[in-house]
């Protein structure tokens, strides 16, 4: 892997390192404020089974094994930051035309369900 692919991987990756176990309402509202997002969709709880179905649209590119070959792994993310990333794509404040397109037609409940599903995948 070249320095450039690493740089891209890092740029695409969420701030997983910052993910804390603290998922209190106050903490999530603070995160929403940090990213300039509406807190309501971040507070929503997703449905794992629905997320499993919806995930088919993701797994053409993102490997469920968690492998990185040029497209970031999205399993086992903190759910709140998964939702943050998807809402940023949806609002086009995060770059990548493919992701902006995919996130653009996902509803809040669908994003929450994907977050819940991918968070619990074991590799």
């Amino acid at each position: 892997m070249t320095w450039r692919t690493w740089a891209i991987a890092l740029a695409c990756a969420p701030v997983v390192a910052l993910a804390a176990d603290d998922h209190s309402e106050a903490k999530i509202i603070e995160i929403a404020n940090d990213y300039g997002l509406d807190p309501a969709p971040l507070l929503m709880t997703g449905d794992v089974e629905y997320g499993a179905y919806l995930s088919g649209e993701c797994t053409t590119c993102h490997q469920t094994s968690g492998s990185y070959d040029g497209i970031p792994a999205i399993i086992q993310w903190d759910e709140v930051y998964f939702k943050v990333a998807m809402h940023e794509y949806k609002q086009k404040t995060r770059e990548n035309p493919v992701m902006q397109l995919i996130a653009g037609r996902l509803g809040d409940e669908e994003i929450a369900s994907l977050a819940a599903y991918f968070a619990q995948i074991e590799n």
Partner: protein
Amino acid sequence: MTLDRRTFLGTAAAASAALSAPMVRAQGTPRVVVVGGGAGGATAARYIAKDSKGAIDVTLIEPTRTYYTCFFSNLYLGGFKEMNQLGHSYGALAAGGVNVVHDWAVGVDRDAKTVALAGGGSVPYDKLILSPGIDFVDGAVAGWDMSAQNKMPHAYKAGSQTELLKAQLQAMPEGGTFALVAPPNPYRCPPGPYERVSMVAHFLKQNNPTAKILVADPKPKFSKMALFQEGWGTHYDGMIDWVGEDFGGGNVEVDPNAMTVSIDGEVTKVDVCNVIPAMKAGRIAELAGVTDGNWAPVNAADMSSKADGDIHVLGDASQQGDMPKSGFSANSQAKVCANAVRGALTGSKVFPAKFSNTCWSLISTNDGVKVGATYEATPEKIAKVDGFISATGETAEVREATYIESEGWYSGITADMLG
């Protein structure tokens, strides 16, 4: 109209359970047969086996033991990939519960609901999924038929044909001419012929820089045209002569013995001639009686054939509406189909269909471009919702990121198809 998801799910699940329950009781474990182990068929087989957890018997009929991806095979021509990097086995699919039968499906008895095999015998099904890819239309290019494919390869089904074309490219005399006859719409992988021109140009620039490329095209325009033409000017200036419909690019005749190409009456002696003829659904779709013209019309909601509700047709062979014929599209359609087939056979939840596609193409080293869209099922067809395309004049960093992304997608889709 907007549907509340829970209401929709409840209704759909109840309806499919009511319909499928008697069949399940009457026949024991329901059987799904999939014909064709490419991006559509392998994905459908894997998802049905994985998600039904043994409640459905899944058989995949695929003649080849090693699957060579058509996507990225142009990169082999350009020298960016080795052939063995494009080959994949069906071992993981078999380990995942799919009964993989290496044989040709040679007939479908829709009344008896059986698929006949070339090796003898037949396989019964409750639901049949056909994903046979493409075959070529007889007489599509004057002077060319399948018996000419060694002298003038199509290389549009990956494997030995791709290796043959590469060998011919490598053997070209200095300053020679490589001709490509492009197909009319619709065909597999819309940017494919033009990515191929780019990869051939890349190879020649490195190895035979005075060689020329002549493209005869029956179309007035093509996928990612502005992006390819910009790239050809930047990387391969003066090497590529594209003759479109306006200049007689559709009036083509080839002579495989004399190695000549005639475009609108002007005859050119060439050294390599890559003929990509007009396409149609793979033969088994026609044998099953589900084609209308060259393709198999399907219902967008579940990819079921308009001729037979127990047969589904995926990928290139299907006539579904707005999606391009691509591996990505076939993979996307397969998941919608798998969900619907499971619902019909076991009463599992059936979710609304959603489709998406992205096609990446490589123009030169680290110069990747992409086009993509999302789609939905309407009563008439799969309809485009929204899309994007790379812009001309993008920075080298963006183009390199796009190429790296395409490599990630390659790993992703092959894992998603084959496990």
